[in-house]
């Protein structure tokens, strides 16, 4: 094994989630990751876009390597956030994992058509929720090659 690049460059994850309980659980699940990562939380769609465009108070924020996006968000809806990311030449390569309670076929279809990288439903049970976040972390951080080559 080569020296782990990620110890020098942690993987930056942006979680867009308005429910503080869910963000807290996600944070705990990601803490246990083998790969060093920083989790940033945006609580609504407008904040998420400001973070991604580095506007205002987000000017010093890193470009996320992975976005985990809820669909039902205040101010700007997750579907709009997804469409903006995937229509922006500079942002479109960032993988976006949809994490939502919605099981509606319409939402699943629409988000894949907008080029969501994958769609995962949030279980209501806390342990199951942690498990799902860990599966996302495990797959996207250790199996997948992210666009910037950080998780070598």
């Amino acid at each position, binding site marked *: 094994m080569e020296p782990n690049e990620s110890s020098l460059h942690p993987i930056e994850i942006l979680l867009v989630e308005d429910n503080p309980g869910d963000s807290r659980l996600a944070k705990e699940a990601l803490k246990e990751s083998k790969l060093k990562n920083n989790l940033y939380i945006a609580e609504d769609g407008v904040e998420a876009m400001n973070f991604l465009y580095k506007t205002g108070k987000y000017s010093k924020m890193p470009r996320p390597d992975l976005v985990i996006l809820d669909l039902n968000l205040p101010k700007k809806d997750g579907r709009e956030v997804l469409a903006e990311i995937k229509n922006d030449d500079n942002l479109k390569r960032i993988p976006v994992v949809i994490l939502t309670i919605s099981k509606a076929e319409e939402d699943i279809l629409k988000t894949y058509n907008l080029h969501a990288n994958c769609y*995962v439903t949030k279980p209501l049970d806390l342990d199951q929720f942690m498990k799902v976040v860990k599966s996302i972390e495990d797959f996207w951080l250790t199996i997948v090659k992210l666009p910037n*080559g950080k998780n070598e």
Partner: protein
Amino acid sequence: MPSESSGSYSFNILLVEDNPGDARLAREALNENNINHFFFHVEDGLQALDFLHNKGMYQSSPRPDLILLDLNLPKINGHQVLSEIKSDESLRKIPVVILSISQSEKDIERSYELNANCYVTKPLDINEFIEVFGRIQNFWLKTVKLPV
């Protein structure tokens, strides 16, 4: 919906891979997981597009639920296949997992640019190869909700 005796839905997985050894190993790896699925295999980019468009000998092929796509392919390369899938209104929703030996950042960036759902490098070691295929299958068929 095609189904097996258990009654649960069987996913259609399309593997686009020109290396017969890798294809065989992939088939075996996918069978080890006990997840109901039908496995389809084509050997080049042209066949892949014919399969997806139900052309020629592929007239009765089902719509895949998941596509595992190699990049270096004869006739039409993987990036071109990906680009066609992701710009086709009726196909773009199908998740495409790029599986390539290439570790080049250019290939990775280009794949995400063309809306690949994810990029995975094929391990050279056989055991790791089987493990990676199993984990791809587990994540995409168990954790993820696929479009119907």
